[in-house]
């Protein structure tokens, strides 16, 4: 195996042109995936790239550098639209995992149960991919293509996640459903962001994870909520059919259960951000 730990982005991008590398950032998915056997992959360790660390602001975006840990997200002052991302961050594994695992790595790992995907979908996040050819930006929904599958080309690297400031608006909430309190892979999770104007929903963004190969935005539901009376959203969610979800049966729960639970946690995420939450009793 080869190992490289560049300290300049250009160097890293140059290396990526040379062959197929496994990129190592926080290590919280890298090491568990190793199993017991010896490491065979060539590893590009990006922990020497200090420019990828931290959260920054541009005129149009809030940028989450590719090496930003969940704990950094929790600690950084951000608008209330990011509350759902912070709530998700607190539910990722444990403090130990949050301190090392990165938000970008969560996207690149592309697990159907990735806690970061629903809130970032609901923030209209884009993934910044860099290569020696330049940079491109993909909407998150176009980046995560399937279970463990992303649109990243082998010669590319995720350098940041960026959230348009226009989407960093409103209030947000996140609900995770798991079979125990900590260190748990989600049975289902929901993220919701609403922009309210005069008691009415001006903008809505809702996403559900662990109920399909890739977490889904519920755009038809958002359409129904938009313009609705904030005090009367629950019947709209109750009446919604959730056609975006294609849950499966597995050891964590049945497909039928996930379908039913998804509706309930969307309601709770919305209720939570509206401040009517009765949020207890979630973790078994």
């Amino acid at each position, binding site marked *: 195996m080869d190992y490289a730990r560049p300290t300049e982005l250009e160097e890293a991008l140059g290396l990526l042109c040379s062959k197929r590398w496994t990129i190592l950032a926080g290590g919280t998915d890298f090491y568990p995936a190793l199993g017991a056997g010896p490491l065979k992959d060539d590893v590009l360790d990006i922990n020497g790239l200090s420019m990828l660390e931290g959260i920054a602001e541009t005129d149009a975006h809030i940028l989450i550098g590719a090496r930003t840990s969940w704990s950094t997200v929790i600690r950084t002052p951000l608008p209330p639209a990011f509350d759902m991302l912070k709530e998700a961050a607190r539910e990722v594994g444990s403090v130990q995992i949050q301190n090392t695992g990165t938000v970008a790595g969560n996207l690149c790992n592309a697990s159907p149960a990735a806690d970061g995907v629903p809130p970032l979908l609901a923030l209209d996040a884009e993934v910044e991919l860099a290569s020696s050819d330049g940079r491109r930006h993909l909407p998150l929904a176009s980046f995560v293509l399937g279970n463990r599958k992303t649109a990243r080309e082998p010669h590319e690297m995720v350098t940041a996640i960026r959230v348009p400031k226009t989407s960093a608006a409103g209030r947000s909430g996140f609900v995770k459903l798991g079979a125990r309190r900590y260190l748990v892979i989600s*049975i289902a999770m929901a993220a919701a962001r609403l922009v309210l104007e005069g008691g009415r929903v001006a903008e809505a963004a809702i996403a559900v994870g662990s109920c399909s190969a890739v977490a889904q935005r519920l755009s038809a539901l958002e359409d129904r909520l938009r313009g609705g009376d904030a005090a009367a959203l629950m019947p709209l969610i109750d009446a919604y059919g959730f056609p975006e979800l294609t849950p499966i049966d597995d050891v964590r729960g049945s497909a039928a259960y996930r379908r039913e639970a998804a509706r309930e946690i969307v309601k709770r995420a919305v209720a939570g951000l509206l401040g009517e939450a009765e949020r207890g009793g979630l973790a078994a």
Partner: protein
Amino acid sequence: MSGARLKLSFEVNGNPVEAEVAPLQRLSSVLRDELGFKGTKVGCDAGDCGACSVLVDGEVVCACLVPAANLSGRRVRTVEGLSKGSLSALQESFLRHGAAQCGICTPGLLISATALLERNPAPSEQEVRDALGGVLCRCTGYRKIIDAVMNANRSVAVDAALVGQGAAVGASPIRLDGRRKVTGSEVFGADERPAEALSVAVVRSPHWHATFEIGDTQTFVAAHPGIVAVFTAADIPGENRFGVIPPFADQPALAEERVRFRGEAVALVAGERTAIEALDLAEFPIAWHELPHALTPAEARRDGFPDLHEGRANNQLTRGFVECGDPEAAIRDAHVTVAGDIETSYVEHAYIEPEAGFAAMEGDTLVIKACTQAPYMDRDDTAKVLGLPPDKVRIVPLATGGGFGSKLDVSLQPLVGLVALKTGRPAAIVYTRGDSMRSTTKRHPAAMRATIGADADGRVTGMVFEGDFNTGAYASWGPTVANRVPVHASGPYRTPHYRATGRAIHTNGPVSGAFRGFGVPQATIMQEVLYDRLAEKLGRDRLAFRIDNALVDGDRTTCGQVLSGVGIRQCLEALRPHWARAGAEAEAFNARDGKIRRGIGIASCWYGCGNTALPNPSTIRVGIRASGKVMLHQGAVDIGQGSNTVIAQICADAAGLPLSVFTLIGGDTTLTPDAGKTSASRQTFISGKAAQKAGRSLRESILRFANVSATADISVESGALIVREGEVRRRIVLAELEPDARGYVFSAEETYDPPTTALDEKGQGTPYAVYGYGAQLVELEVDTTLGTVRLLRITAAHDVGRAINPLLVEGQIEGGIAQGIGLALMEEYVPGRTENLHDYLIPTIGDVPPIETILIEVPDAEGPFGAKGLGEHVLIPTAPAILNAIRHASGAEITRVPATPSRILEAIRAREERRA
């Protein structure tokens, strides 16, 4: 670049260190293997257990997920850095609260709590939970850990030196092995390894059932520099069959031509450590031919499926049976009857320490140092497989980081033994989490059905129980489960007409063995769930119904044994005020008519201590050296439950000597007589009784020498014993006495074997000499739209006869309850699917509610100072009490555990449909 090693400078515990390491070597490995900081433990290598937690620049991280290349210039703190000469306040608090049991997770917890306390010196319970949520503990149930972190200054246990002479029993001295657990200096299976040791990789079956041919291993060895040898079944010099119950021994240490389960060992590859670490076992020359397999008893008993073992027709390993009276007639004539069925899942022990140890030749003796629950059984099984006389195998137990039944069976002992024997070099194995989960035993999945009838006065009249227990590919403790279940399936209730059948059925699933309760927890779910439905049909209060039927002194069990010292009624009575309060609170809460419904549930347990209807002796030796040191040969392996402390407390009071003069010698088979296995809740009772007899015998020999009566006091001064009786004061200068061959000037060795009898064809007889009893009350909330459960509180009343060490008793109760919570709500081992600690869920610190313990002491005539066992009892009532509370809250009738949110919601919907 490739293979290049990095030279790193960083800081560990304030001291600069340098290391030359591979860039991607895990920090856990750098600390343990390169720098010798073995206090950092490795439980999963995947960030799932938190045992390896350390601080890097003040942030708590899993050392198994941090690449060495990240360390340059960083400051690392490990458990070794917490004490500076004396223990930190937090370490002291862990000791005084009994927050460390086996100790394997303790360093990770201490580190995580240190990070919290340095930011927040007075955390709330919620803050403690959030900070410690990433560290799994399988022993304690977390409650004492929370107490220890929140109340560093409130002490519960006292220094052994302050425990009065003759007053050790009933006191709670700090556990005698506690200090090394909180400093990280305890030596567990993976913590000792001779420098010249070979590493051993185990080739395991990827198939449930297959034949195989091993190819050209010579070429394989030659092609891999650093690989020394390959060993297969053909290399095994003895009888290639091990098993905890000799007449049923059937498991090859290395499979011969056919494997019967996924994970079965077929070959060993021994080599230098770096070569084994670089080895890809996929290159091992082996050809597999898959055979049809069965993973459930139903599949294994279908027509045409072959017997997995010759002579075990229809894949039935054994059948246990108890019958009294005429159960059919009793049920036919009953005023009300209920019937039902329950299925349970494979449950993994999930101790945080995967199996580990090494073997080395000392002269012509094979020495094996490993974690274990049963050193003498390991010795005998290993000697048999390797064709050695038992006295040429020496087992030296290293500290065991949790066992719960699975470390009763040998795992790596014959494997490292074979390599050391054949190569003459020490040989070491540390199982990965995956190896541990794939290859070692599990709790038996059970498929049970039962019918119970009662008369119009609410007295249980008859019960019929049948249970099929999936015993997996090999016998292990299957016969014990099949026999224990029928004896216990009535619960601690009078059942005059009764028939219970337990069958152990072979499948190609993982080997089911011993797991805290030997099948009784499963059977109790069946019985206690039906008791709730019976009480409902009778219109009786669920607690009162149980009290009316509880066994009392003089009652006969279903085996015809007349009982005395029965404390179940007292346990249930003690819960009455809590039951009334909890019931009223639930009713008031539910009057709000929300989605969250509150429920309460109750269940009992009884459990016979020691082997079922078989001899089960323990021997304890104690001796005084000329220096005045009292040496206790304490062979009852302490796997965290506290036998090191409890056995010493009993011996101290029996001898009339202060606890502080005792020094422990562990279960090394050349130094210490056989105190039996740590299982069946037998150590406090049986080894404790042997310790009591040995202590008394030691005392008598001193008193005889001093020519004084039994009322004299003995004290120890340096090099002398002082014996006082009234005005008489004798000073025995120990150096003037002739020591025996072991160097003792006074010594005693005593054996105790509990009086039991064999059971006849109807299961009648005296299977156990002592039973313990208990009952638990669970309060919880069910979220009826998500099927989730929130536990509010558990009140546990246990009759332990005499609490030798009340703090350790509480620790056992809280830990057993946590495992019962797992059994009830989340633990489901799916072979081939959940072989790690993120898909297999055990309770975290956020899943165990406040627990109130009520100790009941109804002395037993046999037990030492009246004590009964309790280690397994405490797990038994929890799951059925939870299921009963779920039903009370929501109406959900659960027929398969664990009761996951998915299953609970399905049961709630099923009930709504029945009502509609």
